[in-house]
């Protein structure tokens, strides 16, 4: 199997604070991995390094054989990123937002209506994003991340702000991407299990355990010293 994401001994410091302290991780092509951990564990920092938004202080980071912090059009085109921040322009309509990103990614604009229908925003395609609810913005953000059909999907708490129905719809939609590599950060064990096979538990900037997503909840609670009666 081809290793698509390789991290070796990655350290990220912000001044005196070590957000990541020697993280090593390998993700194979087509694998779906959940990154779990409490707030401040370093999950978002980790995915920002993988996506190239943040530079590691030290260590090896490779995505598809390239360092993501060095600009590469090919690498950027193969990644889609969804976070709790939708990265949308409030004064543009839903359609305009997707059209803008399609142009940046050299993506096929004819996919926009289909994507809007999938995220159930087709009826509101000509409405400005500032009129959207949090959940609607998040759904549009997912369409934005998928406009260029990326091979690797990085999801940083993607269901943040969605109701139960919205979460389920999104997860079902993402499950359709069988052949994509998915990296998901979440607090929600149920989501992790639904979407991913493998879980990596991060605590205080270190990988403390790798296991299957089925075992992740019990393992995580044990590591936190918690019990659920």
């Amino acid at each position: 199997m081809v290793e698509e994401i390789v991290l070796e001994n990655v350290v990220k410091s912000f001044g005196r604070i070590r957000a990541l302290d020697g993280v090593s991780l390998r993700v194979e092509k087509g694998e779906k991995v959940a990154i779990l951990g409490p707030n401040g564990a370093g999950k978002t920092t980790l995915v920002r390094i993988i996506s190239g938004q943040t530079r590691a202080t030290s260590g090896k980071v490779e995505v598809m054989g390239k360092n993501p912090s060095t600009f590469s059009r090919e690498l950027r085109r193969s990644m889609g990123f969804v976070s709790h921040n939708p990265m949308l322009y409030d004064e543009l309509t839903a359609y305009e937002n997707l059209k803008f990103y399609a142009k940046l990614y050299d993506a096929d604009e004819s996919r926009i209506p289909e994507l809007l229908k999938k995220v159930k925003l087709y009826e509101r395609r000509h409405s400005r994003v500032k009129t959207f609810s949090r959940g609607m913005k998040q759904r549009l953000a997912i369409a934005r991340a998928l406009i260029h059909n990326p091979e690797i999907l990085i999801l940083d708490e993607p269901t943040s702000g969605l109701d139960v129905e919205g979460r389920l719809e999104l997860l079902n939609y993402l499950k359709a991407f069988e052949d994509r590599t998915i990296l998901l950060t979440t607090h929600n064990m149920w989501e992790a299990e639904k979407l991913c096979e493998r879980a990596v538990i991060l605590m205080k900037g270190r990988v403390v355990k790798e296991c299957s997503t089925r075992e992740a909840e019990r393992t995580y609670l044990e590591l936190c010293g918690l019990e659920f009666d």
Partner: protein
Amino acid sequence: MGVKFLEIAWKDIVVEFRSKSTISLMVLFSLVTSMLFSITVPVAYAQSIGASLLWLIFIFVGMLGYARAFVREVELETLDGLRLAPVHPASILAGKMVYNLVLMLLTEAVVLPVFIGVFNMSIARPLLFLGIITLGNAAFVTAMSSLAILVIKSRSKELLLPVIAFPVIFPVVSSTVFALNMAVSGKVQGIEGPVKMIVSFAVIILAIAFLTSEYVFTD
């Protein structure tokens, strides 16, 4: 770079004209400052220092407005969207510069006739005057756009930008004032010197900004 920088500039122009958050501020500030100068500066001095005052207005307005292109992306949390895209950071910077140039030209179009009318300025070489002020503004936009990316993460960005900008923009400020006064008076012999300085400054700043853009855009 392709045409992606134009897509970014166009997006900013559309957003700006729907929100009118920056252009209205820039134009109003320019007009208010013009009125203030007209009240505080004796008419007798208007002809001799009018060009300098006009250029001061554009500098103040620029300090206020040109960083907004990046600040707004940070406030809306959309800068990450641009960073993730397969668009070279130099293209993002170029797009912001084009957008700021549009704002600058619109501000000029409103403020210039008002200022000249209020001060009753007589300009010996009006086309040359217009050309110099546009060139000076374009160089200023280049510098401010390049420096704005350095301060956007700071809490006191509006205060920090003028502080770091002033030593950088000094050559273009002094050269533009010098050339403008020559155009007002009509004594244009030697005007090539300051014009070359303005152009050289813009080219150097542009080159440095583009070469360092990739580093500056990554945390």
